[in-house]
């Protein structure tokens, strides 16, 4: 099958050079959270990033016509599924991108497979998307729970943070993050001295922080997200957790969260991300263009992932000359190395995992920050081959081969 497809691709590619480039129509759907807790780290910013990717690609390839739609899944898997079904069946959408919230992403991934379309995940975290639940139509682009756990957990365990106390959000995502981080910490000689599972959307963390304080652990790992993380760190600054010699490890913190915390509260926090707007000149130039639509905000790695993933998708569609067969496009995406201005060179693995380096950041103190958005300093670069879960450990049927 593979050979037939690649032969076909080759044949069409040859035909293309001789004949005039034919017109190609592609329709993209950005399925995201427009109005709730993930709207800042993805949401309208992801739509803006998709527009930039389309503008850049169609400028170089005028024969490709790209249409863009967007939808709000409201963090409900049933609503997300309904939109996905309608997009594929009625609106003839070829590819869905972004989709924060692992629950929604897993549901959409199944639908995409039955309809043989393409799904590129930038916003969701669960590493199951390229593990037991992997499919031949889904690519997980920007980050995942394993990478977050491994990046932060390993780095801190190796640099003296050998005892850990976990504050864990009491649902599937928090448990997964806690489990993956514990494994990384213990593998690197660390020890977990205690943990507490708090309900989702807890307002006050002071009593959990007192428990963390009395545990004397060197690192307080935050296996939670969004408002819960912000509330933990804010209360931690007040109760003198960091001043008392303990360190916070943010296991899922985005630039938008750091902005909400303010550097006064967030300083010293260690975290892992795969992209940061202020890392080099190309990122800064891209951020300027992005800010034309999102004035005063700073793009997150999820936004950058939407740009990068969409760019690679469009290249692959142009190469196979049709967006109709989702599996064929994904096949092509896995075959060709990725290359774009934001993530540089990379690859897409057999299990659908996009592989690129990750970075360990530390949040700056207010005195070190020179302009708005000047959040991080780079503490370490984690090379691509170490950043993500090894192919054979994910239990993905596609990887066994």
């Amino acid at each position: 099958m593979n050979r037939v497809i690649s032969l076909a691709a080759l044949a069409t590619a040859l035909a293309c050079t001789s004949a005039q480039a034919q017109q190609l129509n592609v329709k993209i759907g950005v399925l995201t959270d427009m109005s709730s807790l993930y709207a800042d780290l993805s949401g309208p910013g992801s739509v803006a990033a998709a527009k930039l990717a389309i503008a850049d690609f169609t400028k170089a390839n005028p024969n490709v016509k790209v249409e863009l739609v967007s939808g709000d899944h409201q963090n409900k898997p049933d609503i997300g599924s309904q939109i996905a079904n309608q997009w594929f069946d009625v609106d003839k959408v070829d590819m869905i991108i972004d989709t924060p919230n692992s629950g929604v992403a897993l549901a959409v991934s199944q639908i995409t497979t039955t309809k043989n379309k393409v799904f590129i995940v930038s916003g969701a975290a669960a590493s199951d998307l390229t593990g037991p639940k992997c499919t031949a139509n889904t690519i997980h682009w920007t980050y995942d729970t394993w990478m977050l756990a491994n990046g932060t957990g390993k780095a801190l365990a190796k640099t003296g943070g050998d005892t850990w106390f976990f504050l864990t959000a009491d649902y599937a995502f928090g448990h997964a993050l806690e489990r993956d981080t514990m494994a990384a910490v213990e593998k690197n000689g660390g020890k977990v001295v205690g943990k507490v599972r708090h309900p989702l959307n807890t307002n006050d963390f002071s009593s959990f922080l007192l428990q963390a304080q009395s545990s004397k652990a060197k690192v307080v790992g935050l296996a939670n997200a969004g408002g819960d993380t912000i509330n933990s760190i804010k209360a931690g600054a007040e109760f003198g957790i960091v001043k008392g010699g303990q360190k916070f490890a943010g296991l899922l913190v985005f630039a938008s969260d750091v902005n909400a915390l303010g550097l006064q509260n967030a300083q010293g926090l260690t975290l892992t991300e795969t992209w940061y707007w202020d890392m080099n000149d190309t990122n800064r130039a891209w951020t300027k263009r992005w800010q034309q639509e999102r004035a005063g905000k700073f793009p997150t790695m999820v936004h950058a992932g939407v740009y990068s993933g969409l760019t690679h998708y469009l290249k692959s569609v142009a190469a196979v000359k049709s967006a109709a067969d989702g599996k064929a496009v994904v096949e092509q995406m896995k075959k060709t190395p990725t290359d774009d201005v934001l993530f540089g060179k990379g690859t897409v693995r057999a299990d659908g995992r996009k592989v690129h380096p990750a970075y360990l950041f530390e949040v700056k103190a207010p005195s070190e920050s020179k302009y708005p958005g000047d959040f991080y300093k780079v503490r370490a670069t984690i090379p691509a081959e170490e950043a993500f879960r090894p192919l054979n450990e994910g239990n993905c049927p596609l990887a066994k081969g």
Partner: protein
Amino acid sequence: MLEIFGIPSTALFGQLLIGLINGSFYALLSLGLAVIFGMLNIINFSHGAQYMMGAFAAYLLLQYTGLGYWPALIVAPILVGITGVIVERLFLQRLYKLDHLYGLLLTFGLALIFEGLARNKFGSAGLPYTLPDSLRGGQNLGFMFLPNYRAWVIVASLGICLGTWFVIEWTRLGAYLRAATENPTLVRAFGINVPRMITLTYGFGVALAAFAGVMAAPIYNVSPQMGSELIIVVFAVVVIGGMGSILGAIVTGFGLGVIEGLTKVFFPEASNTVIFVIMAIVLLVRPAGLFGRRA
């Protein structure tokens, strides 16, 4: 060291104190709700949104006028209270004769609108607001580290609660108010402007919510959804205390804060639900609430 249920007693004291601090917020918010329900017979579902507006007002005052925490503590509740007065004049006063449900639906709708507007303008992740310099740091009490700000929260909340209770139960103004709820026509006959008094009472209840919002801004995430997460718990507190009972709202507010704090030590997973379990039990045993008068 003395241990209680396997927890060192010193740690337990710390948790009790923290429970009391959280109870301060419950008390402040449920007090506002109780005042509004007791005097206007309106179930004010936009109370959470008004709490959020208080925190946002503090942020905006700092950002655009440079007013810090202390002035904001006065100015923000006044501003938000004025919006409350407008809401009462425009909408609520038309509903007093109707069933409670109409007021509840209206204020719930308003809450969704306020939250939606805030989200549209400021995004969902939240806004930074730091502690005032004068309340930084803390005291080492031996059994725990008590941040100065939290101590201030208890003191301020207790002061406001007791002050409000005193005004309503023991002053002439309070007597007018209570009389106006019992029999507005008769009170009017004495030459008292009842509608204006009711409007100002609603404004005051809303200002209390905004005050709690400013108090929360330095320690909790200032985001559009901060109120909706809290309001359900606060409603449970009001129901347990007895709808409309001022003293009930204050006592149960602090009491449930302590119970919730203890749950966070012994069984953290249940800390969000324990208040509702208590509410169910209270409703079974005393449907009017612990301090409520039977209607």
